[in-house]
């Protein structure tokens, strides 16, 4: 089998119960103290999230309003981050742009997790499907994900929704494989076998025993997917196959400003900085969660 060792990383995982339900004062603080990366990542991400939500109230103007007469102005008191080639206010665009990056990141993480879990569980439980589905997944995985996404974008046209679909399609097989691995190992567990023997219905087994145990690796995986989706969105827009150019996304702002990076570096700098910080925040959060939720996994990567 082509799976060999790769899935072996996660296949053997048996997880401790998720955090005990007991709550004590100071417990949360202790948790954060123990996992500084979660604290830092969460804090940064929370900040970006606030910016995204409250963008209209943070002294922004219409991010799409053109003013060609005031183009490529450097950062000043009037234009905090300067203006772009069409005279649009980069500060407003970057702030509103955070919405797109977060939407793309979160949606891709959600879509690929849900679909990936569904496929993975089915493949893990239904032998007949397994071979076929996993060959299809292997096939999809052998197409480098950015190529796959570019090809899809060329096919279905630019929109935020399509970006989400295109990136998700490249991520789904990875989740599906991970889940299938976990399911296969769980199936052999005595308590699952007992449940089957006692006549519990398959959906119930999945719901009761399988899904809860796949949650931890999925959450960790989802954070990393979220981070890489944000980068992928920027890359797609950079190549010219991403979010429609009317929508201010970080990728678009950078794509439009790339030709001027020597003369007006601020156009690329601000969205690049925001993007990097956001991705960093999500990555830190992911690292932290992995350490916290799954110490055995943590040792691996």
């Amino acid at each position, binding site marked *: 089998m082509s799976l060999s060792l790769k899935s072996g990383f996660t296949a053997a995982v048996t997880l401790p119960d998720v955090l005990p339900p007991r709550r004590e004062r100071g417990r949360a603080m202790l948790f954060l103290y123990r996992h500084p990366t979660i604290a830092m990542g969460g804090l940064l991400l929370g900040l970006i999230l606030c910016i995204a939500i409250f963008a209209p109230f943070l002294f922004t103007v219409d991010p799409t309003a053109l003013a060609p007469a005031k183009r490529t102005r450097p950062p000043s008191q009037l234009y905090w981050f300067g203006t772009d080639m069409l005279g649009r206010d980069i500060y407003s665009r970057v702030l509103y742009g955070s919405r797109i990056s977060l939407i793309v990141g979160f949606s891709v993480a959600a879509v690929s997790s849900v679909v990936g879990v569904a496929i993975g569980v089915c493949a893990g439980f239904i032998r007949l499907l397994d071979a076929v589905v996993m*060959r299809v997944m292997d*096939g999809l995985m052998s197409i480098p994900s950015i190529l796959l996404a570019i*090809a899809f974008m060329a*096919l279905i046209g630019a929109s935020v929704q399509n970006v989400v679909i295109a990136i998700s399609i490249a991520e789904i097989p990875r989740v599906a494989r991970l889940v299938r691995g976990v399911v296969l190992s769980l199936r052999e567990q005595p308590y699952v076998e007992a449940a089957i023997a006692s006549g519990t219905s398959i959906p119930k087994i999945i719901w009761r025993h399988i899904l809860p145990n796949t949650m931890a690796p999925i959450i960790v995986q989802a954070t990393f997917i979220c981070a890489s989706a944000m980068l992928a969105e920027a890359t797609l827009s950079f*190549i010219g196959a991403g979010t429609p150019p009317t929508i201010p996304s970080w990728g678009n702002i950078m794509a439009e400003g790339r030709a001027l990076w*020597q003369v007006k570096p601020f156009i690329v700098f601000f969205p690049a900085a925001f993007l990097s910080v956001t991705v960093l925040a999500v990555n830190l959060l992911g690292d932290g969660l992995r350490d916290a939720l799954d110490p055995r996994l943590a*040792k691996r990567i």
Partner: protein
Amino acid sequence: MFSYILRRVLSTIPVMAVVALFVFSLLYIAPGDPASIIAGDQASPADVERIRMALGLDRPFLVRFFSWVWDVLNGDLGTSIFTNLPVTKMIGQRIQPTVSLMVITLVISLFTAIPLGVVAAWKQGSWIDRFAMIISTAGFSVPVFVVGYVLAYTFALDGFDLGIGWFPVQGYTPIEQGVWPWFLNLLLPSVALGLIYMALIARITRATMLEVLSQDYVRTARAKGAGQRSILFLHALKNAAVPIITVVGIGFATLIGGAVVTESVFAIPGLGRLTVDAILRRDYPIIQGVVLMFSFVYVLVNLGVDLLYTLFDPRIRY
């Protein structure tokens, strides 16, 4: 052993079949009609129809698919719609820059990331460990093109006036014109492309080394007085090799994806740029050819990785 290799090799066939079907049908349903693009601004619908027939675009799906597969198996990837050149020739022209870029990236990444990961594991918790991990996390977080532009600005245009504008800012020098110019031309793009790869490898190296270093045989080696360096690089690293190689193989996809962007930032006439150009122009045969080829290479690399396991870890027998 032999049957494992055979089975592993055979298992790539269905994967490639899925890729082929997928790549073909993806572009089969693509909007945009190459016939009318070729016909140009002033052509009549009849002319467009004639061109469509000449290209065979009017035949049913399965007929087109199987005739395409047959041609591919015979080494014919079709003819580019825009240049009228055989796709195999166009890929052939572009292969050297991309292979060079990847090889240099691979070499640089391995030679920096593995020692970094080993040292970070050895000095766990020290400043060098923290520094390595911060750098590698940052490597995951900055887009390739931003890294590329910053490198070009600093080391080619000498934008900060540091007197270090040593490298060409773009292009590719064929290796026949000298190894040194070839290497100089590719160094900046390789570093830009390799950053995320380095991050990946450094992390996995550190993690596996940490695990290996806590094993009994390492303790035994220490106890019998083996040198620190020999423990790290002889005993431990060899045992950590399997996960590292796995990540190198899987990360290869990132490398291919990154090459698409890197080649356009540094104007390297390689396969990545060919792909982007072809997709923007809807040059179906090229898109099919390139995606198919990249996927094939990726499958081969991972096949190689799986076979390498048996070298490093004789226990693996399936």
